[in-house]
């Protein structure tokens, strides 16, 4: 018996050594790919914030499908890394993406939190990323060469939202956030841009059900507008409870709220709410709109789908140009300058897209309507 225990241990050891001998190649980067090149999606597909990730993946899928239909000899594959938006899970997924030599570009990471956790890895691996949705301004200040975003950051959106609020003639604006990295970051910028028109209403817990304490404070301050930095589910609850409490202030919020989920949650209280986004309205480009509808049973592209399509198109352009390694593709992107469906795609050395704008949207008759650029 005791011999067999020793033998089992020795077998385990021997097998492990076999592993060492066989392996050792899992850090390959760049051109060791056998088979089709892959463009990866990185972000949440399941979990609490799955909606936004699904929108992004649809944009990416469309771009790749169009390419594959036209180029039978140069097929591309979409690989999805579902982080559930959790910075804890993201590193193991990022390492997997890096270890796969066929992954030459990433559309994502979708959120700012996971970006902070994994972008240093992509930078080290030289794996180019174009995020269609992570808008935290600090992300471009890390000196990452691989980092690009397909829309402007919150440092553009915040002042834009503030300008819209002022242009609408609001004098006293309550500023609330959901205490998330994104929400608080955006709300702080809006508050700063509003200057003495802003009334700090502090943060709420997006998972909580009752926001009466904050609404009471808003009522007490006599605000004529409320800006909320955060995501759509909490925004809907807040807007609804505000209306119930008799607060008539106009509801403003940012791109995290730009989802039909907001209208569902707020019901009639959503009417007249103004949302800002550095993303373009879905009908900006009729050609893209039609292609998207055809590919998705007539469904309209939702928030970030067009940006994801743009991001994927840049990678595809690089691959068509004969670039097959991560380094070559990165160089191609850094020198890229062409029109996408949402904007002119050209990046400065920090990875911010040049010439971007902030759009305003209004909730009207239970639907999101673009009401144009904010000057």
């Amino acid at each position, binding site marked *: 018996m005791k011999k067999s225990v020793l033998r089992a241990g020795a077998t385990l050891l021997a097998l492990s050594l076999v592993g060492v001998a066989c392996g050792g190649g899992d850090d390959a980067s760049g051109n060791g790919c056998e088979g089709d090149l892959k463009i990866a999606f990185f972000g949440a597909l399941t979990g609490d914030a799955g909606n936004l990730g699904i929108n992004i993946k649809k944009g990416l899928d469309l771009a790749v499908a169009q390419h594959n239909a036209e180029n039978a000899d140069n097929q591309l594959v979409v690989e999805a890394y579902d982080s559930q938006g959790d910075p804890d899970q993201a590193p193991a997924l990022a390492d997997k993406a890096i270890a796969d030599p066929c992954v030459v570009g990433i559309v994502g990471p979708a959120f700012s939190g996971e970006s902070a956790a994994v972008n240093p890895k992509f930078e*080290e691996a030289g794996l180019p990323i174009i995020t269609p949705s992570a808008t935290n301004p600090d992300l471009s200040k890390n000196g990452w060469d691989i980092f690009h975003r397909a829309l402007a950051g919150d440092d553009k959106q915040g002042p834009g939202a503030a300008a819209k609020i002022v242009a609408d003639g609001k004098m006293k604006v309550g500023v609330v956030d959901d205490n998330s990295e994104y929400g608080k970051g955006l709300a702080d910028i809006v508050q700063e841009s509003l200057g003495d028109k802003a009334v700090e209403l502090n943060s709420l817990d997006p998972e909580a059900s009752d926001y009466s304490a904050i609404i009471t404070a808003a009522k007490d301050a006599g605000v004529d507008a409320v800006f909320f930095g955060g995501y759509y589910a909490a925004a809907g609850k807040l807007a609804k409870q505000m209306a119930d409490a008799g607060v008539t202030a106009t509801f403003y919020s940012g791109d995290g709220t730009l989802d039909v989920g907001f209208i569902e949650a707020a019901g009639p209280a959503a009417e007249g709410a103004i949302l800002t986004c550095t993303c373009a309205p879905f009908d900006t480009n009729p050609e893209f709109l039609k292609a998207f509808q055809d590919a998705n049973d007539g469904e309209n592209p939702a928030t970030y789908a067009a940006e994801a399509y743009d991001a994927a198109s840049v990678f595809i352009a690089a691959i068509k140009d004969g670039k097959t390694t991560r380094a070559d593709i990165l160089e191609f992107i850094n020198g890229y300058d062409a029109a996408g469906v949402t904007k002119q795609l050209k990046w400065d050395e920090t990875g911010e897209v040049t010439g971007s704008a902030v759009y305003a949207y209004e909730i009207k008759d239970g639907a999101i309507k673009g009401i144009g650029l904010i000057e």
Partner: protein
Amino acid sequence: MSTIGNAFAPVRDAFDSIGDAFHRMNQWQKYSFYAIVIIALYLAPFWTDIPVIGPIVDTPGTQFSTVLNDQVIIFVLVALGLNVVVGLAGLLDLGYVGFYAVGAYVTAILTSAHGNLPWLLSLPIAVVVSMLFGVILGAPTLRLRGDYLAIVTLGFGEIIRLTAKNMDWLGASRGISNIKKPPSIFGLKFGVIDPKPYYYLGLTLVLIVVFVLHRIEYSRVGRAWVAIREDEDAAELMGVHTFKFKLWAFTIGAAVGGLAGVHYAGKVGFINPDNFPLQLSILFLAAVVLGGSGNMYGAILGGVLVAYVPERLRNFADKRVFVFGVVLVLMMVFRPEGILPKRVGDEHKKRQRSSQNEEVAQ
């Protein structure tokens, strides 16, 4: 026994026979067994490259070696620490994530946010600060009875997380990035991509913790803990200074939790309050109880399972948490002492006797 219901019988029999064989081995054989197992464990990142076995152990969608460090090592460390509190001293702690967070935050503050210390120097400081937090929480609350302690510790974990989230000095919801890495040593470079050096470091930490805890468990302190767990009043009457030893359990548990936090912060380089949710405390507790509360090796096994199995089952996608919940219930119904129950002596006999009495009563 012949029914298929007792699905764990083969597992237990296997472990029992290994245990029996182990006890019959002589000194030399034992040491070589230890050596073989430890070397095999150090080679774990390469297991995926073994023919046939590799695809079975590999985690779909995630990098196996990253999972080994970021999930498995962290959970094993934490389970070892929590096992001291819950398994040995019998104190129900639902806020253990708080100590883990303290360890990570102290490292982040000292090496990035408000200091420039090397990671190695932050390690002892963070462990000591975690112990201090253990005393701060333990001193006023350890006089409370079991279930009150549970909710108080739960609240403590939340207070730590929310304080980090609301204080700009602690990075608020942005978190703290650019945390320093461990120093390169023996040709191991602690970079951002290759997780293997971190795994080797983490495994070394686990081995050290196992060694130290093993010594403590079989010392006077360890015997006092078991006495408290089995019957606090009796222990007090027999002259065991229960409060002092409970506080020790809390403090030592906190130190190990803090150590896990330091290792995590050094590996990931970026932490924010969302890394330390209340649910994590519950998973930690589940790891200890699932593996076998009170048995260090059970806690290790529990930590490995709770960390690894959800990653292995990644293709279940969003159903894996449901499966995990059902498995917990099934485990508790059919094997409530965990997979590897604590070593039993008189206590075991006592329980057998009481269950026999009940059968008589029914």
